[in-house]
C-alpha cells in the first residue's frame, strides 16, 4: 500500500508536469565567462599578431595612478568620473581657446553615455583612456545666449543623468523642481553670450542636446576627447576624484 501511494504521488507529479501549459517549455541560464573555463589557445594564437601590433607594451605603460576606483554613476546627478571629464576638458582646452580667440570657456557639457568604462584603482595607462573614451570625438566650443543655456538646464533637469558639467551649479528640490541655478556664481543672463565646450558628437545632435545647434559661432578645437584624458593623466600624478555640489537634489 505504501508503495502504491508513493507511485500515485509520483504519477500525480508527472501529470502536473505534463499538463502544464506547453508554452513555457524552456530552460534558460546566463553563464559567467570566468577563469574556471579553460582557454582555447587557438583563439589566442589568432589574435596575438593583432595584439602585438597594438604595441601593447607602450599602451599599458603607467602614465598616472588612481587612488580609488571611479565610476560614471557613483553619484546621483554628478559623478567622480564625469566631473573629471568636465574639469580636464576645461583645464586643457581653455588655454588653447583663449590663445585662439581671446575668450574663456564658461561652461563644459559632455555626456554620461560617452564615458564607456571605469578607472580601476592602480596604474592608469593610455589603454585606460581608450577604454573610457573609445570614440574619435573632438572638442568644439559653441557660443550660446542665455536663452539657449536655459534650455540646457531644462534638458539636464529633465533627463536627470550625471552628465559631465562644469561652470553650472544646479540644485533641485526633492520633487525635482528647480531650487536654484547659477552660472559661475551668477544667475543666467538671457542677454549675455556664453562659451560652452562640448564635443562634435553632441553638437551634431547626439543625446538629443539640440540646444547646442543654436550656436551663434562655433570654434573647432583640433583636440580629441581621448587625448584630453591622456594629457590630463600625464600631468596628474595621482587621480583623486570626487563628487561635489555642481548638480544635486536637496
Amino acid at each position, binding site marked *: 500500500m505504501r508503495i502504491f501511494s508513493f507511485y500515485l504521488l*509520483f504519477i500525480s*507529479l*508527472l501529470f*502536473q*508536469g*505534463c499538463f*502544464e*501549459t*506547453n*508554452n*513555457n*517549455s*524552456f*530552460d*534558460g*541560464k*546566463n*553563464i*559567467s*565567462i*570566468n*577563469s574556471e*573555463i*579553460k*582557454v*582555447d*589557445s*587557438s*583563439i*589566442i594564437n*589568432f*589574435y596575438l599578431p*593583432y*595584439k602585438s*601590433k*597594438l604595441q601593447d607594451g607602450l*599602451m599599458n605603460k603607467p602614465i598616472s595612478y588612481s587612488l580609488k*576606483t571611479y565610476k560614471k554613476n557613483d553619484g546621483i546627478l554628478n559623478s567622480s568620473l564625469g566631473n573629471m571629464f568636465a574639469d580636464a576638458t576645461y583645464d586643457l582646452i581653455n588655454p588653447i581657446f583663449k590663445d585662439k580667440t581671446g575668450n574663456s570657456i564658461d561652461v563644459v557639457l559632455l555626456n554620461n553615455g560617452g564615458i*564607456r*568604462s*571605469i578607472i*580601476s*584603482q*592602480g*596604474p592608469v595607462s593610455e*589603454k585606460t583612456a*581608450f*577604454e573610457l573614451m*573609445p*570614440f*574619435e570625438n573632438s572638442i568644439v566650443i559653441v557660443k550660446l545666449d542665455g536663452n539657449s543655456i536655459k534650455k540646457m538646464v531644462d534638458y539636464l533637469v529633465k*533627463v*536627470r543623468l550625471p552628465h559631465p558639467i562644469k561652470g553650472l551649479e544646479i540644485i533641485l528640490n526633492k520633487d525635482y523642481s528647480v531650487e536654484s541655478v547659477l552660472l559661475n556664481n551668477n544667475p543666467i543672463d538671457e542677454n549675455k553670450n556664453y562659451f560652452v565646450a562640448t564635443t562634435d*558628437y553632441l553638437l*551634431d*545632435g*547626439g*543625446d*538629443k542636446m539640440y540646444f547646442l545647434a543654436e550656436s551663434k559661432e562655433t570654434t573647432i578645437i583640433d583636440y580629441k576627447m581621448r587625448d584630453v584624458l591622456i594629457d590630463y593623466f600625464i600631468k596628474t600624478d595621482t587621480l583623486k576624484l570626487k563628487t561635489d555640489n555642481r548638480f544635486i537634489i536637496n
Partner: protein
Amino acid sequence: MDRRKFLKNSVFGSLALGSTIHNYSCETSDLKKITILHTNDVHSHIEPFSSEHSEFPNQGGFERRSTLVNSIRNNNPNTLLFDAGDIFQGTPYFNFFNGELEFKLMSLLKYDAVTIGNHDFDNGITGLYEQMPKASFDFLISNYDFSNTVLEGKTRNYKIYNKFGIKIGVFGLGIELEGLVTKELYKETKYLDPIEISRDISNRLKFEENCDLIICLSHLGYKYDNLPERVCDYNLAKKSNHIDLIIGGHTHTFMDKPIVLKNEKGNDVIINQVGCFGLYLGQIDFFFDRNNKRSFRSSVLKI
C-alpha cells in the same frame, strides 16, 4: 524500451539514488532539444579583463567563450549562436583594426547571425560595409531601410534555420539612430517602426514559412524607466503575437536569468540579455515533441 518500463527505471532508479531527474520527457525520451546561445554589446572586448580590473577581473574574452560554445555544441549539435549588436567600439582593437578582428573571431566561433547596433555605425555605414566580407554569419535587420546606401542587399530581413527538422525563424530589430548616431555616419538609412515591422515579419514566419520557433534579435534596449512608452523589448514583447524569444541588447542589462512576459494573446514571450563586454553567454534550451510542438520538459520532476 516500453514506456512504462522506461519510466519505472528512470524514475525509481533516480529516486533510489536520491538524485534529481533530468532529460526525460513526459511522453517519450525522444524530445528534440534546440539550444540557443547569445551575446550582446561585446564592444570589441577581444581579451578577458585584466586581473587588476576592479569590476570584472579575469572575466570575458573570446578564448573562453570559444571553449564554452564548443562544449555546448558538442553536447547538442542542434545549437545556434547569435549576437544582438554593438559588436564594435570599446577597446583599441576597434580603433586600430576597424572591427576586422571582431568579425573574424566571431566567424571562428561559428556565429550564425547578428543584428546591427548603433555603435556598429561608428566607422560609418561604409566602415561596416568594408568589414562584412570578413564575417561568415548573417546580418539580420528588418526595420532599417538601406536603399540608396552601400548596405543595400547586404543584410536580410530574416532567415530560417533548420535544426533537427525544427524551423527556426530569426529576424533583427535596430534602435532609432537619430540623436544616437551622427547622421553623417548612418547616411540615408531609414528607421522603420519596429513594432509594426515585427508583426509583419512574425506573421509571415508563422503562417507562410511555418516556423516552429520565432526569435527576434533586438538592439532596442530592455526597458526605459524614465520613458515607459518608448519602444523597447519589454513593450515589444507585450505587443507581439508570435515571438517566442527576444534576445536583447543596448541597455547593457545583466539579467540573472531570462524573464517571461505575456504577449497580446496571453502566451509567453521570453526576454534575455547578458549585460555587455562578453562577460556572460546566454543559453536557452527549447524542447519539441515528434510533431515539432513545443513540449514541456521533465524538470518539474526535480524532487
